[in-house]
């Protein structure tokens, strides 16, 4: 195969396309664009689903990075001097904000009818400073009753809807319909008993177990735990445009080498299994879509090649190498694939993505969107292009191998 062979193959492909049936060409490009759209949409939607679940976890539960008390050489219950630690972490470029959490366990007692009949459930209680919390988590945006004020008083509590009960599906461990203004009694694991007025109720469908927790003020938590300026965890939100998660973790480890650092991905648990399952489904669906697209291209190019059998026979009769004929069909196939891919990209990014922004599909974690990385788009394009090369080559090879006279005269 030399330069002249390439030039000849391009010439044959060019003439065959430009002098071929325009309607067939448009139809071919349209079908290929739909194949590419199918490939992009399904994988993008599943990516969007996984991305939405992860985003929900980050926004409502864990932020990006969790700093925990030291484990070595001795295990400590709290991070000491949390304000200083947070101030140091916040000096790292790209860190959006930090917030401390106190983790407490409590047994809730609620008398709905005020008849002395208490329903008791156990649930985690988190002590937060709402002004810090708002910088890193969006729980405050999911209040369905009451409010989550910045100055949450020591005798006020915010309940998750799954804990309060009465919001959607009944949970086995809810309070049976606690409402804003009611009182709940909490017995902490250290024996301290406090009574709180419910100030607000939030509802989060996706976000790990946070939907079944309660929030109290950090000062109240310190009062219960008899500590000051400590934290059970420091949640860190970062800007991933400026660095990767691993880079941020490394920098935080440099600042607080004795503390334990975790990425949010370590906290995914069942959500992680769900995300992994969706990622596997996305890969399977993508592979199937590529195979379907390849078969579509193959069938279309094969029909084209069979219809051009006479032309192929004539080319062979006048002494054109089979490799040139095959290459010309690969070029034709690539032409259709490139146009089909381009049209598919236009459909996805100019039509479907804006349409989903205007008329979003509501999912438990928020609005479903199509999510792609440049690498995924590139892989999809390359996959379809490679499919196009084979789908163009194989039918041309099959037809070109036929007897010359049979090709010409049928």
């Amino acid at each position, binding site marked *: 195969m030399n330069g*002249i*062979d390439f*030039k*000849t193959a391009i*010439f044959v492909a060019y*003439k*065959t396309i*430009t*002098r*071929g049936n325009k309607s067939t060409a448009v139809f071919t490009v349209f079908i290929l664009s739909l194949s590419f759209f199918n490939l992009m949409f399904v994988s993008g939607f599943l990516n969007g689903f996984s991305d939405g679940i992860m985003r929900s976890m980050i926004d409502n539960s864990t932020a990006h990075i969790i700093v925990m008390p030291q484990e070595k050489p001795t295990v400590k219950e709290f991070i000491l001097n949390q304000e200083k630690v947070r101030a140091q972490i916040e000096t790292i470029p790209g860190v959006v904000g930090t917030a401390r959490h106190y983790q407490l366990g409590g047994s809730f007692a609620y008398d709905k009818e005020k008849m002395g009949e208490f329903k008791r459930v156990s649930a985690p209680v988190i002590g937060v400073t709402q002004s810090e919390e708002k910088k890193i988590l969006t729980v405050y945006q999911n209040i369905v009753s009451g409010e989550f004020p910045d100055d949450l008083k020591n005798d006020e509590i915010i309940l998750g809807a799954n804990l309060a009960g009465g919001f959607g599906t009944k949970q086995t461990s809810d309070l049976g319909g606690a409402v804003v203004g009611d009182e709940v009694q909490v017995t902490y694991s250290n024996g301290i008993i406090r009574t709180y007025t419910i100030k607000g109720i939030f509802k989060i469908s996706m976000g790990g177990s946070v939907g079944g927790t309660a929030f109290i003020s950090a000062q109240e938590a310190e009062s219960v735990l008899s500590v000051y300026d400590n934290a059970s965890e420091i949640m860190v939100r970062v800007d991933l445009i400026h660095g990767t998660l691993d880079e941020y973790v490394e920098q935080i480890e440099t600042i607080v080498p004795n503390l334990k650092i975790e990425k949010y991905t370590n906290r995914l648990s069942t959500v992680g299994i769900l995300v992994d399952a969706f990622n596997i489904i996305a890969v399977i669906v993508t592979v199937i879509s590529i195979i379907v697209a390849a078969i579509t291209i193959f069938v279309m190019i094969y029909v084209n090649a069979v219809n051009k059998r*006479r*032309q192929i*026979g*004539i*080319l*062979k*009769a*006048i*002494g*054109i*190498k*089979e490799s*040139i004929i095959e290459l010309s069909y690969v070029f034709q196939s690539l032409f259709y694939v490139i146009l089909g891919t381009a049209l598919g990209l236009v459909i996805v990014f100019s039509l479907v993505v804006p349409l989903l922004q205007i008329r979003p599909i509501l999912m438990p974690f928020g609005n479903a969107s199509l999510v792609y990385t440049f690498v995924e788009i590139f892989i999809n394009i390359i996959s379809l292009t490679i499919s196009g090369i084979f789908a163009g080559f194989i039918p041309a090879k099959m037809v070109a191998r036929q*007897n*010359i*006279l049979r090709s*010409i*005269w049928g």
Partner: protein
Amino acid sequence: MIKVDNLTKTYPGEVPTQALKGVSFEIKKGEFVALMGRSGSGKSTLLHQLGLLDIPTSGTVLIDGVDILALSDAERTSFRLNHLGYVFQEYALIAEFTALENVYFPAMVLGGERNKERASELLKLVGLEERLHHYPGEMSGGEQQRVAIARALINNPKILFADEATANLDTVSSEVVYRLFQKLNKELNQTIIMITHEPEDRKYMDRVIWLKDGLIEKED
């Protein structure tokens, strides 16, 4: 120039058909030879074997000393392109190419220079200088056949094969094609082997090989 020895061709099938049963003859350079015979006599089969469009079952075909049966597929393709010209009964032009493109295309594959100019000259030679940029579908049968002849000549073939090249043409067009072949034969010493059914065409030929039932019946 061409030496054929005991050439046979059998088409496989439930009942194999022996189209050539052992044909031997020689053709010298510059001869204008006709293959004649009744339908089914084997003349088209013979021309296809000589033109390397098909593979004989047995025998020997030497063209300028080259045993064409010993060539690989790629070598046969190259031999066709470089040394043979073929004119089909049904023209066999590429519908997507203009007359000019159909003619210069075989030369383009060889990468020679001035291909378009030479193709234009050949189309002028066959009287189609006004039809260079017309597509086959826009030309008459006679015009298409003349394009096919020009195409067959573009690479200066050693042998020009014509398979009933005038069968689909009217009398006037047939006359034009024969005169063209005669001109090529006399002026350029072009070796031509042509199948024809018409005895009156004998006047243009140097020699006629008559075939009957896959064998040479006679030569005159």
